[in-house]
């Protein structure tokens, strides 16, 4: 993992500096003396490899330095403020996607070919096809302006998290529903389910205990990419709903050439994806009865 982080750091560092423009470039040009003063202050006048080593050394100690553009804050402070917000949003979206998706998938599988199944799967297809920012706009028109139920944007109350979490989770709920349905149908046709029924077990027990365990496997392995998708998806939605999370910081850091903040964000995202994938691998091993735990 250290190796991954190092590679990501190095690539990100040189890519950032290869892009034209710098953090202190303003619309109006400054007298050269003032510009030199500013560059000296942020150590931008040192040779590139020296800058690289300094920043790498600090990053190894989890110190990403001051943000270039949010001059009153260090990168660590920005992350400390932004992370819980994105985490809240992500958790809501994921829980929503998982519960709604599996529930819809199971029902569809059990009531195959019924109007319920058809409408669920139609919605799922739509959910996958519609990008989340389009969904967000539709939701805002519907819930904020037509029904006047929810606030338009911002952060600070439970009401404000509902819409963004819904929009963020929707495509994943849709995908999970399809996965669960397929998995469920697949498992339900297998011999051990027939045996379970034959032994006279209660259908609910058969489904939740035996069938779901196999059916949920593809869903669990999808949770890794889903987390990645939710992380990146929240970049757009945080902008639309004006949420002060990691996504907003990431976008602004990149467009404003805030080198230090962008680097901090890249590393946190890398770490997050890495950890989530690892967790998924572990739970995969625990759920799949075919995997032997030694």
């Amino acid at each position, binding site marked *: 993992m250290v190796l991954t982080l190092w590679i990501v750091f190095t690539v990100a560092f040189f890519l950032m500096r290869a892009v034209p423009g710098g953090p202190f470039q303003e619309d109006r040009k400054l007298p050269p003396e003032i510009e030199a003063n500013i560059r000296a202050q942020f150590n931008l006048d040192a040779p590139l490899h020296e800058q690289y080593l300094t920043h790498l050394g600090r990053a190894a100690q989890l110190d990403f330095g001051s943000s270039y553009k949010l001059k009153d804050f260090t990168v660590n402070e920005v992350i400390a403020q932004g992370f819980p917000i994105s985490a809240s949003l992500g958790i809501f979206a994921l829980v929503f996607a998982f519960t709604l998706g599996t529930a819809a998938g199971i029902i569809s599988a059990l009531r195959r070919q019924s109007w319920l199944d058809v409408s669920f799967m139609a919605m799922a297809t739509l959910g996958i096809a519609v990008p989340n920012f389009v969904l967000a706009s539709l939701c805002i028109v519907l819930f904020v302006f037509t029904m006047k139920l929810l606030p338009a944007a*911002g952060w600070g109350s439970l009401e404000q998290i509902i819409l963004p979490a819904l929009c963020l989770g929707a495509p994943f709920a849709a995908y999970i529903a399809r996965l669960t349905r397929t998995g469920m149908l697949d498992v339900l046709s297998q011999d051990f389910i027939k045996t379970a029924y034959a032994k006279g077990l209660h259908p609910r027990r058969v489904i939740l205990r035996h069938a779901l365990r196999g059916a949920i496997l593809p869903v669990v392995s999808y949770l890794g990419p889903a987390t990645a998708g939710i992380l990146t998806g929240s970049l757009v939605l945080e*902008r639309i709903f004006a949420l002060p999370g990691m996504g907003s910081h990431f976008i*602004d850091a990149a467009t404003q050439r805030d080198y230090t903040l962008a680097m901090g964000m890249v590393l946190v995202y890398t770490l997050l994806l890495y950890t989530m994938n690892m967790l998924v691998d572990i739970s995969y091993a*625990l759920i799949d009865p075919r995997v032997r735990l030694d």
Partner: protein
Amino acid sequence: MQHAARRMFPYIALVLGLGAVTYAVSFGTLPPADFTWVNETEIQSVDPQKVTGVPEGRVINCLFEGLYRFHPETLEPMPALAERHTVSDDLKTYTFYLRPGLTWSDGSPLTAEDFRWSWMRFLHPENAAQYAYQLYYVKNAAKYNVGELAAGDSVEVEIDDRPPHPSGREQLFPRGTILRGTLVSITKPPEPELADGLSEEDRADALAQWKQRWSYEVEIDGSSRHFSKSDLDGNQRCRHVLFDYNHVGVRVIDERTLEVTLENPTPYFLQLMAFYPLYSVHRATIEEHGVPLWTKPENIVSSGPFQLQFRRIRDRTRMVKNPRYWNAQSVAFNVIDALAVNSNTTALNLYMNGQADWITDVPGPVIPILQDRADFNSQPMLTTYFYRLCVEKPPLDDIRVRQALNLAIDKRIICEAILRAGQVPARSLVPPGLAGYEPAEGAERNVERAKELLAQAGYPNGRGMPRITILYNTLESHRTIAERIQSEWKKHLGIDVELENQEWGVYLDRVRSLDYHIARAAWVGDYADPNTFLDMFVTGGENNETGWGDPEYDRLIALASTQSDPAERMATLHKAEEILMEELPIIPVYFYVSKNMVRPYVGGFHGNILDRHDIVHMSVDAEEKDRVLEAEGIH
């Protein structure tokens, strides 16, 4: 064991999931503010001397106060921390008299010395204030800021003995020991030879390193001493050798009297006193906590109508009333919020939904719908949209080509059909509406004349004309305007123009290095005077960026800055602008309008050409607010 793990897993997962949800909902809710506005992007800092932006200005004008503050409608500088001032007969010396009994938000007295010290910090090269040039009107201020010295100058030497700072970061203040004397000479090692292919930045770095090895001979109290910024034999190591700040034109007469001497009469100097970079900051706090820690809500000491309560990054800056503000009884709000919302669509949603009382911008496409609403507040602004023409690149080096291009553009259509928010077609660089100044308007649209000029330049109907490109930074409206102009030039002049959009940073780079033919630009006036537009185009000016220069133009701009009679001065500037509009290194396209939306229950909001609106003048009619929101069905 393994079966236990497997059996337990669903429960563990459930507990983890529930735990995560509990965590996710566990955030405190905020009490609502009395007044909320959308302040566009997140502010870079609340340190008045470190920022340049408009959003920053709105917050800093809440937290701090200058000697003067603009009248919300007329923009006339009104006494603020200063109760009055006098000007000498030669218009070069301003004496400011502070109000009695002024205090900072921590109760310590606010005196003339605070301004003297703050301006020193502002101008100090190590502070690297981008706006430092705003104070160059003050005698010797530029010398102090730039750090260039000549033998015989009075200098201050900062010895390399700064106390280690408790913040752990190296700090400019408190400074090391300061010695004052007269510069005798500077001994320089041979100047490094710079390769031709070196970038501008590398060149600057090499020169900076070279300057580190200079040795300064300074006469102090009759004896000669040597100082250098690096360890040189026989030299005492120093941090800075600067022009002596005691000889900069800022003098404290007594606690309540500040005397400022200028280089030249500057008719708009009082306006600068209402401009936030020149506000005073609290010395003791800065010396104790350092940068940036002094700006934390628990540390910051301020002088304005409000105090900082907290900052949630890219969400809101919350401020509360400062009971020690000299005019606290006239401040209408106890709690105010500045929201950081980047998208103007989201901002409009917040406004329409009653979550914001004032937004500063609305998305272009909805303007025609909003325009008829009473709460849409649109005013002409001191901002010009124009095209820079790189006069070093043929065929744009030919004045006839530049004139032809200008004559063929229908600016009225751009305003009425594309922008549609009441923008005004521009035939001058300086926008209308400045007291005493008549903008020098260039020729009106004339397609026939444009064709003639182009033919005279050797490109009849565009034949043989080298291909040119319009460069603009990526934004929908820039593209639409460029396309319109492209099609007109094609239709009327028969020339082919390419469009090229670049992301902001790249665009700036290209314009700076004159690597373009035609580039879109805009300029916002810093103060209400034509000079803020016109001095941009002196030969080699930092923001000229067209390669154009004209000795007569330079002479007029310089002359204007020494003229004390306002009418004469305006006439000189007008003459200069006439040259600019004849030579056309730029093509003005239109003048901006502000696009504020303000709820009708907000009082004290007025349109003005700087689009500057201080919260301190505003108020909210609470009953009216309840009534309006109720009527719109918002709870």
